[in-house]
């Protein structure tokens, strides 16, 4: 499991600042390269990503002609005294090749920009000021922290020894009041028809507080899958008791493949089978990949009985490496995040555009929409179905106005 350690509080920033100031006083000719790792999507504060990223500079720092500083936000600064540019370039190239897939790097290669490195002449007052300014902001903690890829930094990852107890609580704890209904809207249709379906899910943050306070359930993917497998059954039991006749909009449920073969799903199916057309089963991509044949069988079984199948958790990045159209889903949830590069001008990556065309835009939902930017991006791709907190606000506003 990745270990998360934050270096001693801004110590490196102070050391670097002192070094720069000393150089300014002695007038020694020196220069600094600032490597903006914090601008990338990978979290460079994490060990051992930090160490791996610093490695390429081992050679140049060995002879003491350069010193490397590893800042608290993941950035690196190389202060060079007597070095050839070729040596530094070689180290930078090695580092770049590690992160070659990052959108920033990709874009820079296309535009010829370099937002990855900044060069400072330490014999120039203007440059020195600029560098110091940057460092003070970091030392004061003013620099925005990159969101963690997974989990929450203020909680400890769930330990294996704790899993049993969490499972026991999960089986017991009250869950019904944690069920949320998040709509997916289709912007092609006004008013009532706007809502395509409502996803019924359990609010995980609140649930985590009840069953594992202080623990980060998301930190370990496999333990998370195990627990949500158990949660599936509880959700089915609760929803099986719901009066679906009263529900107007179709419903979607996120389930594991393995849950579909359980007696709990069987019982649920018995109760809701007459309304299967109003039900969408969401299966996450990672789950489908663990047994593609099984997914195919599940899809057949479900669609023969009137259910529709949705593949959840598909990142635009994944579509560059995987063609999911052979899976023949009724819907695909493409997952928005700030990871997704903003294109100038809006032009789809070839694979993504091809996928959208193959599947048909009516099958695509852009999920995790948290901003207007996300919607604009989606619209530029021809996507017209959206889900997310930002969408919730729009729906609420429309409801208040009586438009929905």
């Amino acid at each position, binding site marked *: 499991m990745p*270990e998360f350690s934050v270096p001693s509080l801004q110590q490196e920033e102070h050391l670097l600042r002192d070094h720069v100031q000393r150089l300014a006083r002695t007038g020694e000719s020196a220069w600094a390269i600032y490597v903006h790792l914090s601008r990338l999507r990978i979290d460079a504060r994490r060990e051992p990503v930090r160490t791996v990223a610093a490695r390429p500079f081992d050679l140049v720092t060995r002879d003491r002609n350069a010193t490397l500083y590893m800042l608290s936000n993941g950035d690196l600064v190389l202060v060079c005294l007597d070095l050839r540019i070729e040596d530094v370039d070689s180290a930078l190239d090695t580092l770049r090749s*590690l992160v070659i897939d990052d959108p920033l790097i990709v874009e820079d290669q296309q535009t010829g920009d370099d937002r990855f490195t900044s060069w400072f002449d330490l014999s120039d007052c203007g440059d020195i000021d600029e560098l110091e300014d940057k460092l003070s902001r970091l030392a004061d903690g003013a620099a925005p922290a990159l969101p963690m890829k997974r989990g929450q930094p203020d909680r400890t990852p769930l330990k294996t020894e704790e899993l*049993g107890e969490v499972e026991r609580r999960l089986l017991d704890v009250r869950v019904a009041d944690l069920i949320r209904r998040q709509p997916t809207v289709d912007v092609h249709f006004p008013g009532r028809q706007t809502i395509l379906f409502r996803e019924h899910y359990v609010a995980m943050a609140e649930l985590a507080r009840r069953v594992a306070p202080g623990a980060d359930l998301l930190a370990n993917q496999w333990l998370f899958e195990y627990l949500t497998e158990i949660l599936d059954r509880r959700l089915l039991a609760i929803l099986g008791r719901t009066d679906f006749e009263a529900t107007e909009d179709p419903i979607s449920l996120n389930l594991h493949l393995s849950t579909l073969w359980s*007696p709990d799903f069987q019982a649920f199916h018995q109760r809701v089978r007459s309304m299967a057309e109003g039900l969408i089963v969401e299966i996450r991509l990672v789950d489908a*990949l*663990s047994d593609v044949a099984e997914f195919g*069988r599940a899809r057949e079984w479900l669609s023969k009985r009137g259910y529709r199948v949705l593949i959840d958790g598909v990142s635009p*990045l*994944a579509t560059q490496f995987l063609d999911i159209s052979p899976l023949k889903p009724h819907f695909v949830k493409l997952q928005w995040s700030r990871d997704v590069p903003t294109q100038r001008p809006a032009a789809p990556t070839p694979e993504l555009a091809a996928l959208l065309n193959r599947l048909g835009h009516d099958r695509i939902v852009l999920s995790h929409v948290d901003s207007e930017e996300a919607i604009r991006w989606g619209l530029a791709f021809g996507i017209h179905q959206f889900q997310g907190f930002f969408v919730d606000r729009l729906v609420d506003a429309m409801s208040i106005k009586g438009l929905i």
Partner: protein
Amino acid sequence: MIGATAEARRAMPSQDQLLLDYLRHLESHQEGRGAIHLRLSKLQAFNRREHHIRAAAEAFDNLVASRDGQLFFLDNGDLLLIYALDRHGGVETAVQSVRYFFGDDPLLGEFQGGRHAFCRWYDIASQFEELVGLAQGLVDRSGPEREETRAVGTRPHSLQRRTPYGKPLTPGVLARLKAAVERTDLANMIRRQYVCSLDGNGMPAPIFSELFVSIPDLTETFVPRVNITANRWLFRHLTESLDRRVLSLIRGNDQFTISGDVSLDLNVTTLLSTDFLAFDEDMPAFRRGALLLEINIVDAFADLRTFLFARNFARQRGYRICIDGVTGETMTLLDRERLGADFLKLRWSPGLAKLPGDRCRQLGALIGRAGVSHVILCACEDRQAFEFGQSLGIRYFQGRHIENLIAEDNRRRELLRVKLRLRNRRG
């Protein structure tokens, strides 16, 4: 040490044997009992996955819990329940739900000699001898097969496709097992299985060998009678500890790597751990190319960005990457070159041989696109697997059949050497 373990393994009774013993015990208590034999082994292959069998077994949970029924997971994949006749109604309901489950399977509509092909009911009092005959027949037949089941267990850690043997892993047991793995020397449990190409004469030529922890050995040593692969998520979590232990065993210990190129199963998180960094530092640069890192496709896509970083790092250091856990169906989704994998491990299953012609051709085309020298057909249990692979142009194979070929080849060479020695002596 290996011999001793095999001995221990042979000594453990199978469920078939347990059934026979149980029936003998019932000889004097035949009244009021019935049996139902669910012939899951006759279902289509894709209906016989582990979780299907478990799901079917779950239908009888109540009966077993209240001790009104005794459930046997037979070696051939069937289920047999012996129950108290006054619970017949409950058993019928359970069987109904199992039948519903497998409703799409053609077997459910079949009859043999006036009886359902899928489920056979017995009244023990009037059909005792018949049932004993059935059980005895199973034991007799499965004798030699059991040796094979043991050998099957020497496959690299992968979900067992045979009947589940044992209780599913629970979090408590997992925690104990993980702790045990982390503090024990697992050197005795490391196994090696070769990936080979076959020359014109059908003789195996090893390309590299996969080092892995024997799951049966691990199970029997620490958690006997528990099925640790039953839940794929808990098992994946366990492999994070297993792969670190293998790394530390191999690090600085030449005995494993001296005989040629080697592959290891690794999780992405392990690849980016300080354990791997330390391992990497000890590894001279010229040796890195001899190490192939096998990463499961589910692991890669669980956090694709981290996988890409790890992959770039590994390749930069000179290691090669193999994507594991690929099936015929998965192949339709993948692009090996885009993924940056040097190899794909395609898993053989008997279902592949039954693919209709056009699907077969499609798979052949996919393999061609991935590159025939970049695809390894693993889990080749028998000749059929090997022939199928060859027909699609695959060049590299791994599995029990290959191990057998190697053993045969070694025997042949030994024989030749002996003959040569004899000839020299005489001459």
